[in-house]
């Protein structure tokens, strides 16, 4: 039996390590066997890092997902969560490179209760998807006048 030394660093952040490992394997296969290049990418999804901000009357989510066309992106609200997804497949138009590229990702973000799911807006610029999530009017802070008698 072969013993493998316990490596705690792998357990520090499993998601990160997995992503690194995935990238490493993609790179390895892509460079060692160029024919696999297109074959490995659809299996592994593209990362989709997000930042979330809060403003007085809305939340704003920014997601970095370069390389997609607007039509390749989908936004859905399912069961109180925002689901961002994208799938693109394109052949190299110039035909100079004998490869096509395929990319996909899915990211689920639980939404705060106070978000008005019917008023969500999104735009895609320079590879960044910006989603505006307005708060429902009744949850916005408001001042209540107190009558003094």
């Amino acid at each position, binding site marked *: 039996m072969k013993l493998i030394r316990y490596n705690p660093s792998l357990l520090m952040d499993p998601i990160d390590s997995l992503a690194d490992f995935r990238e490493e394997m993609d790179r390895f296969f892509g460079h060692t066997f160029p024919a696999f290049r297109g074959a490995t990418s659809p299996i592994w999804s593209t990362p989709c890092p*997000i930042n979330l901000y809060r403003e007085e009357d809305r939340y704003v989510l920014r997601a970095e997902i370069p390389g997609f*066309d607007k039509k390749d992106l989908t936004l859905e609200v399912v069961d109180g969560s925002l689901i961002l997804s994208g799938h693109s497949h394109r052949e190299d138009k110039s035909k100079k490179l004998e*490869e096509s590229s395929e990319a996909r990702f899915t990211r689920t973000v639980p939404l705060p209760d106070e978000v008005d799911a019917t008023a969500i807006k999104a735009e895609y610029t320079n*590879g960044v998807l910006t989603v505006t999530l307005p708060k429902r009017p009744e949850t916005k802070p408001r001042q209540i006048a107190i009558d003094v008698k």
Partner: protein
Amino acid sequence: MNTEKTPSTEVVETPVPTQQPVYDVTETPEEFVITARIPGVDRSAVETVIDGDDLVITGKRTWKQPDNWKLLHEEIPAVDYRLVLRLDHRVNRDALKAHLTNGILTVMLPKAEAVKPRRIEISS
């Protein structure tokens, strides 16, 4: 770093606290093509410069967080992109071309005439 991409490029370490974009290098008979993922950078904020033997790509993140916004969750670093690649004699440095589409920068580096494949006529 030993992450050699193709025989013609070599990663040069940068001491500046910037983010190295995820990038790829592919090769055709006529050129090398670099694709780098630099989301959040406007066309006007990208710079592709040849500095000595290095191809230096910098991209400034155009968007800045407004003061009255509170950051609740962060996965995107607020730093600029920088990628430095060493060029060798196989690249024609005068004919570099670049374009930015949906956050992906593509830089085309035509090969020098001397290294392009050519057919040699055999005289009888």
